[in-house]
């Protein structure tokens, strides 16, 4: 491409079967059409979206965005994407650390890995030098991989790797990045294992060229000002001070704490296991991704990460554990073995409900190790519950386990869970922002009124956020208005926020098309029956009845209308054509 502001104009392709390394230079129109990150990855995944996860030709895609590696706040993120071994749906995950920044500095907008190495290997990238290196790290934990590579790699390089869980076939396998960051959801680590790829190391010495640095600095100040004004981000109870664990007290006080496998929504011991308790006991320090000023990650004095909110909740309330040390241990073991703590917690809760067995420290740790060794539990609650003939105990959507936000306490969340293109996921539309966190303004969390269009617009916005790429937490303070200015400043491409939203619509619709090609339809856009038949925990003046099934289905039908899908939730030829997705 002629312009090299924001984007590098180059995508790196590596075939692990043939060891062939090639470069692709996408047409500038493709960049305009998909932006980067999740959008570009989806574009490249599309022709291969129906391949089975064990098919060597199924690509794993790692993409940066035009803002990656610039002064734009929280722009250090990237996307890892493929088809999920857990759900069969498309699966992308926004990943932090330094990975995307280093890939960009090495000169690449994205990396596409296909094929299968005949022996375990690592990929090492130093600018234009790309090596596929035999690895003797098979079976090593993530920390062992990081420690081993740290002694031999260049300062500032980024390392991503899988742990034993992936190598043993777990569909909950994650990809760990730079020791403390995880691409957790959907079992994408299993695809790495299937390709015999143990690790990826990237170091770049270049930079991201910016079209108008003054304009970028001005926008950066605007975003900083908005962030500073945000209680959720920079307030004394906000993510910067406490990590996302600061949600723990709030979710419990709002009767949204999934407890005993979503059979209750308040956790009596919450006050002993909240973010304040972790801070007092583990004396954490701030840590964050490249280019971030919020620094929401917290690291304990002994170097282990303090769990994110979802892991805090799922390793306590969801499974009946009151031991704070055990939460840290379980979270750390998940990281070491390379497993998604959300799905792991949910599967343990499902197991507890079916068997009636309470967890002890020993039994919980045993369960985690068994999951990583290829036990039935290691394939997630959907698989396990069905194996036991108790499918109703899997609290999942499209086979992906639900995170720690009870949908009976936030109806937009209920709709967002059901319609998410990657299954049980709170991040696609992130209705928590307005239903609980009051941003941009508060909405009635016990109503489906207006939620269909709200969810659709939010999905489009977040598709853009993941494509620019930026952290969606920033959007609890700033908006597309400010990030559009940043995009223009970086790339020089004159575009409006509304234009970017239309691109977000394209990116999301493309995911719907890929899912439809894999047989997903309205029956998959649904919640576990429990939420329509059992109440949550009422009290404190708040009533938590079961969701009204009729209202839910009406809201879902509204969503299909707003999203311009057919009545079965599938894409229509007219919209597919309008969005330029029919080529």
């Amino acid at each position, binding site marked *: 491409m002629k312009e090299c502001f924001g984007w590098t104009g180059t995508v790196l392709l590596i075939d692990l079967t043939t060891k062939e390394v090639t470069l692709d230079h996408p047409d500038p129109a493709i960049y305009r059409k998909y932006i980067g990150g999740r959008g570009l990855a989806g574009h490249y995944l599309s022709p291969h979206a129906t391949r089975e996860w064990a098919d060597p030709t199924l690509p794993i895609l790692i993409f940066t965005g035009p803002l990656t590696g610039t002064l734009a706040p929280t722009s250090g993120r990237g996307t890892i994407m493929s088809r999920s071994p857990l759900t069969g749906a498309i699966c992308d995950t926004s990943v932090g650390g330094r990975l995307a920044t280093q890939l960009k500095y090495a000169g690449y907008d994205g990396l596409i890995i296909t094929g299968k190495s005949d022996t375990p290997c690592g990929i090492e990238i130093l600018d234009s030098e790309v090596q596929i290196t035999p690895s003797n790290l098979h079976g090593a934990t993530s920390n062992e991989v990081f420690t081993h590579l740290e002694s031999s790699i260049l300062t500032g390089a980024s390392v991503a790797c899988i742990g034993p869980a992936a190598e043993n076939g777990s569909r909950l396998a994650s990809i760990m990045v730079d020791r403390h960051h995880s691409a957790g959801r959907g079992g994408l680590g299993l695809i790495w294992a299937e390709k015999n790829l143990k690790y990826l190391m990237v170091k770049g010495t270049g930079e991201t060229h910016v079209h108008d640095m003054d304009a970028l600095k001005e926008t950066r100040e605007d975003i900083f000002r908005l962030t500073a*004004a945000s209680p959720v981000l920079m307030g004394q109870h906000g993510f910067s001070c406490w990590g996302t664990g600061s949600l723990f007290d709030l979710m419990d006080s709002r009767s949204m704490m999934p407890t005993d496998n979503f059979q209750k929504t308040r956790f009596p011991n919450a006050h002993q296991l909240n973010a304040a308790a972790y801070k007092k006991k583990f004396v954490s320090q701030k840590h964050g991704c490249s280019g971030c000023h919020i620094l929401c990650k917290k690291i304990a004095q002994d170097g282990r990460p303090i769990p994110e909110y979802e892991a805090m909740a799922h390793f306590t309330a969801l499974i009946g554990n009151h031991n704070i040390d055990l939460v840290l241990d379980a979270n750390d073991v998940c990281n070491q073995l390379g497993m998604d703590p959300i799905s792991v917690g949910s599967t343990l809760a499902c197991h507890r409900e079916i068997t009636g067995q309470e967890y002890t420290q020993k039994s919980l740790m045993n369960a985690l190790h068994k999951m990583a060794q290829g036990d039935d539990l290691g394939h997630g609650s959907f698989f396990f519950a069905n194996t036991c003939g108790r499918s109703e105990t899997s609290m999942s959507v499209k086979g992906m386990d639900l995170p720690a936000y009870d949908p009976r306490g936030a109806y937009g969340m209920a709709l967002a869970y059901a319609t998410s293109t990657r299954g049980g996921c709170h991040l696609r539309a992130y209705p928590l922002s307005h239903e609980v966190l009051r941003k941009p303004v508060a909405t009635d969390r016990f109503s489906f009124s*207006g939620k269909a269009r709200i969810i659709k617009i939010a999905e489009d916005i977040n598709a853009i956020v993941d494509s620019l790429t930026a952290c969606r937490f920033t959007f609890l303070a700033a908006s597309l208005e400010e990030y559009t200015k940043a995009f223009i400043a970086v790339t020089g491409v004159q575009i409006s926020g509304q234009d970017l939203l239309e691109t977000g619509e394209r990116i999301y619709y493309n995911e719907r098309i890929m899912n439809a090609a894999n047989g997903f339809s309205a029956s998959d856009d649904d919640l576990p029956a429990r939420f329509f038949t059992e109440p949550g925990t009422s009290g404190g003046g708040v009533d938590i009845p079961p969701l009204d099934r009729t209202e839910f289905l009406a809201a879902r039908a509204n969503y299909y209308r707003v999203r311009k899908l057919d009545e079965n939730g599938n894409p229509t030829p007219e919209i597919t054509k309008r969005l330029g997705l029919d080529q």
Partner: protein
Amino acid sequence: MKRLCDKYATKLVTQGLAAPNDPIIGGLDAELVWNRPDPRIEEFTKLFDVLSINSLVFSKPAEPYATILDFLAGRTKSAIRPEDTETRTFLHDIPICREFTASAMEVNLKKRKAVIIPGEGIISCGTVSPEQGFVFYSSTIFACFVLFFSDYLNKLRNKTLDDEYREIFQRVVKNLPQPHTTLPQQVSGPFTDEDTVLAAMAESGRHVVGYGLVDSFFGNISYKLNGTVYISQTGSSLEELEGCIDPCPMDGSATTGLTASSELSAHEDVYRRSNYRCILHGHPKFSVIMSMYCDKQDCPNRGKCHIKCTECRTVEGIPIVPGEVGTGPTGLCNTLPPAIASSGSAIVHGHGLFTAGLNDFNKAFERLLDIENQCRKHYFNMVKSYE
């Protein structure tokens, strides 16, 4: 959606921001609904087809705001850029759209949150609720009011005032609402239980709005009881505080204040430094205008007064401090607490007024009203002195 459209149409009128029956508010889920029929809806409907929005707010402002906006728009090429906190932080600038067509409005709404259409009104929109449109509409009026009166005083002092401004100013002043001079009856403290605290906060919040001492982004209010600060939630409307107050233990044992006002840190620090039990924060317009008035022409910090002012400034004896919203390095959490702790009240440059009370909201409210009235009087005295 219809209920929300009706609610915010009513709110615009009751808060004196629009004339009765004037607001047009649309909301879209699967179906587009409006608060009332109007021929202009046909044009507005087109905006829903081209913008990813779920709500739209339009109205001609009530007087004197309509006159102010049209005047400022008449002297502005493309966008008004006031320097109050609302604009600096949230609006950035306010575009002017000179055509009453969907295509012209679309161009501006694609860039900014609210747009002035001279002679017609303000249009704004939201992605989750008509409340967003209401907030942006309200913020626009507040910012333009402050800009209009600030500029007038500065031009008068600098002897650059023209006849048109003088004439419009006279017309606007005639339409200003009379200041309140009587105080509301509020429950007496000190309060000893949570329920009484919450009820007293809700009562005082309603009075602050009813007296016009809060505009735009709603201010905040708190009360300290037994080591816990009860504070209004971020973005909450002070006249609707029921269910929107967060208990925040000062010992840091819980993070339930995650949704609390962005000024929680400042409130807490005031309580640590003093014996006050309650704080009220509003955005009374003349207090804000006077906070931005400074005759030090050659100050090296000019243009950055809101964060860098080092002068010991007061208006009618009330300290004026710099500081931005929230907890950043230039946040008002660093400047406000010592000022309030020492005098019981302080104005944040371009932002608003904070007042404190020892037992209940009576004294804090009295201070809030009295200071605003003093600032208003002081403003017009200065105008007279320069004429």
